[in-house]
């Protein structure tokens, strides 16, 4: 509400308004002399009633509130529900005088009321209400007022509200009677229906004494509810229509003396359970590093044992065989222990996402209020746990995404209504575990991102040649907002700022070993998806060799290992297949999948004549056999996910360090197979 250009309606109002005020005040003055004149009461009523109706066309809450109460009072007098009183007429005259002054202010400023209008209105409303019997017994002016509003001021201050943002509020105090539950009343359900909530306090009536030992009767209602709302008193009163005797509704303004308190810190809610021990996180990190090294050393030991039990050595050691076997047993036990230790330590590093997620609802609410938008934030996946390092790195990117969504994604209420969308927007912050990854999505139901505009902006910035831009499918066009060129101020205007800072955000997520993607439907909304590794997960891999090089295949993906006699292999179209028990499986060569030299022509066979060794994996629901030169063994490894340029390579899950210091590449065999063009892996049955 500030100075607005004088419009036609306002002009007319400023012509009629003074006339109505004149009529009302004439009638009221006359009533002082002849209080029994019903005609005068009627005249005053109609004038105020008309005024109230007109004021309703404009956003003048202070004026509206005063006129509403004035109309109520005059209506009660006119209907004979209440007797006319001199002080009441007095109060009404004050009200009309104030209305007249306000009309003058409106005319002078083209539509703005003075800054103290709210306060003046609150005072007048309180005064008039007394004659309606709303504040309980007593027509005494002023004495009940401070006591009545003490709880309001207390609530206002406790919640750290800003008087500048809330010049007038409706305060409601609801004290349900003890038997209300037996009538089927639910105070909480009623409170849900109160519009414009700004503050809410639910407390206990009477003595607030914890009753752990006494017999506590939960069905004797002892709740007291105090509410501050920015809706009009009638709207706030509405849900309580059937229990008007249990509520107290006051139009209130914060006195200037109420200093905006520093917002209280978000209440601490216990999310840790049971006995806890505070441990310096550096110690846990050191522990994790030690365990990593232990894993590597343990693997070195397995290699050593393998070498000592290998065919070339076995014959040579003679009586040492027993010692070697015993060594093997010890090594297997060590294997298991280290595995457990590793899992336990990594478990310490796993922390819940909840404390992070919990910060966002309030943040989004504040952002939305500041921007004049109505946004609800739903949060899902509070049970998800991730590596400590990942959580710490998520706050900035998520804050950025949410701010983007509220600022640029969500439309103003008017725009939403015009599109038939609900006035309240909804953003969903959703976290979930998928295998060894954490997926976090921020989805809004706002205006979405328009590929056409992004293409245009990209073209203007010379980010890509026009031909290339045209050739890009829509879903990849959205990805362009992650390019540095889109984070400039100029880009902000074009895309309504949606691209701001996205390149920095992608880089931040990349440093966590994760990736970011966008999906959007213009007009409907946008989803930004972060995919992060759970990090440092111990993976069980089968180490195989191809062309003298070693590779790891996660045991998770291996259905079985098998040997196939060379003469059981059949050629099929451009490939090979064989029968495994009752099924025909295609046989691919890992060397081929990796693009290595030897291919399907006779590979070196270290032993067993013509038998080929193959690992059977599942690809898209079917089993496929992948030939390797040899099985080396199984290992528990610390899988480091790919970062940087290699991240996007299909077929590579990560790397790990072997006992002899060499790097083992861990393969995503289904991914490698999927990357093959053409039908070469079809098997004929």
């Amino acid at each position, binding site marked *: 509400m500030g100075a607005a250009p004088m419009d036609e309606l306002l002009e007319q109002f400023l012509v009629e308004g003074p006339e109505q005020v004149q009529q009302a005040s004439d009638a009221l003055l006359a009533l002082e002399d002849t209080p029994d004149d019903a005609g005068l009461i009627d005249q005053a009523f109609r004038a105020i009633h008309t005024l109230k109706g007109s004021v309703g066309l404009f956003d003048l809450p202070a004026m509206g509130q005063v006129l509403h109460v004035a109309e109520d009072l005059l209506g009660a007098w006119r209907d004979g529900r209440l007797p006319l009183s001199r002080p009441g007429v007095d109060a009404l005259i004050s009200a009309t005088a104030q209305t007249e002054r306000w009309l003058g202010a409106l005319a002078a400023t083209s539509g703005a009321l003075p800054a103290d209008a709210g306060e003046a209105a609150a005072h007048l409303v309180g005064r008039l209400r007394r004659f309606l019997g709303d504040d309980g017994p007593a027509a005494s002016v002023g004495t009940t007022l401070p006591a009545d509003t003490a709880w309001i001021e207390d609530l206002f201050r406790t919640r750290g509200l800003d008087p500048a943002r809330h010049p007038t509020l409706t305060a409601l105090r609801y004290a349900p009677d003890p*038997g209300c*539950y*037996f*009538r*089927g*009343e*639910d105070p909480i359900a009623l409170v849900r229906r109160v519009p414009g909530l700004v503050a809410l306090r639910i407390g206990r009536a009477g003595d607030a004494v914890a009753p752990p030992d006494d017999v506590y009767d939960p*069905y004797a209602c002892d709740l007291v509810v105090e509410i501050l709302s920015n809706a009009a008193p009638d709207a706030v009163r509405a849900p309580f*229509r*059937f*229990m*008007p*005797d249990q509520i107290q509704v006051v139009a209130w303004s914060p006195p200037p003396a109420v200093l905006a308190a520093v917002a209280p810190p978000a209440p601490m809610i216990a999310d840790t359970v049971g006995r806890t021990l505070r441990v310096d996180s550096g110690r846990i990190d050191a522990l994790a590093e030690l365990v990593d090294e232990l894993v590597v050393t343990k693997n070195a030991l397995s290699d050593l044992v393998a070498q000592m039990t290998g065919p070339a050595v076995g014959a040579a050691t003679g009586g040492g065989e027993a010692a070697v076997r015993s060594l093997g047993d010890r090594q297997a036990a060590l294997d298991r222990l280290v595995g457990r230790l590793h899992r336990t330590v990594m478990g310490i590093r796993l922390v819940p996402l909840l404390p992070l997620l919990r910060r966002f609802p309030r943040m989004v609410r504040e952002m939305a209020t500041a921007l004049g938008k109505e946004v609800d934030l739903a949060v899902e996946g509070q049970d998800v746990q991730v590596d400590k390092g990942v959580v710490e790195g998520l706050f900035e990117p998520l804050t950025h995404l949410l701010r983007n969504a509220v600022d640029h994604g969500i439309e103003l209420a008017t725009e939403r209504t015009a599109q038939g969308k609900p006035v309240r927007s909804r953003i969903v912050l959703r976290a979930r575990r998928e295998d060894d990854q954490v997926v976090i999505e921020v989805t809004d139901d706002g205006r979405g991102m328009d590929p056409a505009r992004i293409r245009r902006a990209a073209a203007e910035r010379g980010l890509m040649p026009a031909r290339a831009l045209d050739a890009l499918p829509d879903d990849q066009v959205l990805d362009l907002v992650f390019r540095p060129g889109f984070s400039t101020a100029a880009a902000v205007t074009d895309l309504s700022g949606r691209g701001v800072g996205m390149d920095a955000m992608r880089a931040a997520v990349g440093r966590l070993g994760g990736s970011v993607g966008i999906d959007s439907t213009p007009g409907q909304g946008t989803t930004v998806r972060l995919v992060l590794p759970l990090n440092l997960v111990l993976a069980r891999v089968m180490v195989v060799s191809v062309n003298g090089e070693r590779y790891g295949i996660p045991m998770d993906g291996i259905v079985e290992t098998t040997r196939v006699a060379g003469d059981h292999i059949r050629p099929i179209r451009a490939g090979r297949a064989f029968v495994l028990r009752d099924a025909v499986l295609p046989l691919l060569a890992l060397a081929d999948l990796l693009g290595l030299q030897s291919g399907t022509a006779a590979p070196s066979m270290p032993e067993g004549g013509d038998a080929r060794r193959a690992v059977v994996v599942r690809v898209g629901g079917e089993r496929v056999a992948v030939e390797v030169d040899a099985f080396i063994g199984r290992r528990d490894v610390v899988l480091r996910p790919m970062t940087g340029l290699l991240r996007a390579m299909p077929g590579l899950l990560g790397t790990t360090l072997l006992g002899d210091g060499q790097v083992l590449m861990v393969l995503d065999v289904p991914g490698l197979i999927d990357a093959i063009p053409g039908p070469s892996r079809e098997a004929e049955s």
Partner: protein
Amino acid sequence: MEPDDLPEKTIGGLDDLGGMGQMGTTVLIVDDSKLARIVVAKAIAALQPGWARVEASNADEALAVLRDGKVDLAILDFNMPGRNGLELAEQMRHRYPDMPIALATANVQDEVIARARAANTTFVSKPITEEGIRDFLTGAALKLRAVHG
């Protein structure tokens, strides 16, 4: 009104009050329109299939039913010729301080609300729906359990 007409409630006649939705609970439905009584009965049957229902088409009949002493809660139509639901409720309240009573009405004026609250009755909106009387029935069940232990 005529307090002597209203019978003493016979506690011995009520059987099996354990738990929610107790068997042996009887609801009195009072409305001059048979159609309206059917609607109410259906809604109650859906929410509390184990409860028995008795009907009356005016205040006098209702009092007669109450004389039999088997009614645990009542839903009264407000807008009846003769004594309306509110007056009936006020009369019943004297004799049955603990009986859950609801007034069914489409349109409530403030004065009616005040008197209804004084008589500790609940409002249910007409047309009656399951949703509309669910809370009243829940509260009544709670009350009956509390009163009878």
